[in-house]
């Protein structure tokens, strides 16, 4: 009798644990709710945006450096 009760308790605990895990898998929380939607395309978007913002940073920085070189050149050639 005690063994049967112990077995039933164990089965009950396992079922609760599995249901909790299943519930957790079916309902993504927080940021996963957004990122795992739409065939995970938001993940692709974030990857591409990281690359794009990196390239943009490079473009703006190159622009700034060229402006500085041009300014120095203009001053040098004017004073020469």
């Amino acid at each position: 009798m005690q063994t049967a009760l112990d077995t039933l308790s164990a089965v009950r605990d396992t079922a609760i644990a599995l249901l909790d895990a299943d519930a957790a898998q079916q309902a993504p929380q927080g940021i996963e709710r957004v990122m795992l939607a739409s065939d995970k395309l938001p993940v692709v978007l974030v990857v591409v945006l990281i690359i794009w913002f990196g390239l943009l940073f490079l473009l703006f920085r190159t622009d700034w450096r060229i402006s500085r070189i041009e300014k120095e050149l203009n001053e040098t050639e004017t004073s020469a």
Partner: protein
Amino acid sequence: MTSTDRDNLMLPPRGIGYRVFTIIVAVWMTTVVCFGILGHISNLPILEHTARNLYFHVPMWFTLMIGWFVTAYHSLRLLVTRRRIHDVRAEQAALIATVFGVLGLTTGIVWARFTWYTGTNIWWNGDPRQVMVAVQLLICGAYFVLRSALDDERQRARLAAVYALFATVTMPFLMYVLPRRMESLHPGAEGNPAFSQMDIAPEMRWVFYASAIGFLMLFRWIYTLRVRMRAAEIRVSELRAANWP
């Protein structure tokens, strides 16, 4: 370098209009990327989500062609005016346009491998449009080979300008006319209009147009930077030569 050449290479400083333009390009292309990846697309068999490559792969070809038209324009101006800045502009436009062309070919190979050639190990099947584009890029590459073969600056500029004009003339035939006349898996073959299966969703068409314009603006920005950089390089080298004992 004569004082005229020096004046030609002393480009006017970039004003507020240019700054606004760069910010517009940044915001425009970010928006295109967001809509391109998350926007609604037609449900196409085989292509599935790769249909989104339409927004990124096809504008590469527009940029290649327009870039080489810019090269041709400055090549013609060089032959007429003999001003060095036109050689700088022609070379940089050709360089960036060719880079876009190589990116277009590479992205096209990847796209085809996992759509037309799924289940095979084929990356290249001699598709007419792919072959024509590869030939076109070889013609574009020969421009740089020609430039590197000549030491005299003025001769290099003039010969490269003449070659660039011929290279640009081949472009509409190899990239547009001939592929449309031949059997191909590529959209637009055998006389049919391109994208006939892809623009069922109107929102795809608008994102595509925005992307094409965005990549052309991006070309313009990179081209401006490269021209300024190259002009500054030449001015620095001439200053160094003048100060050399």
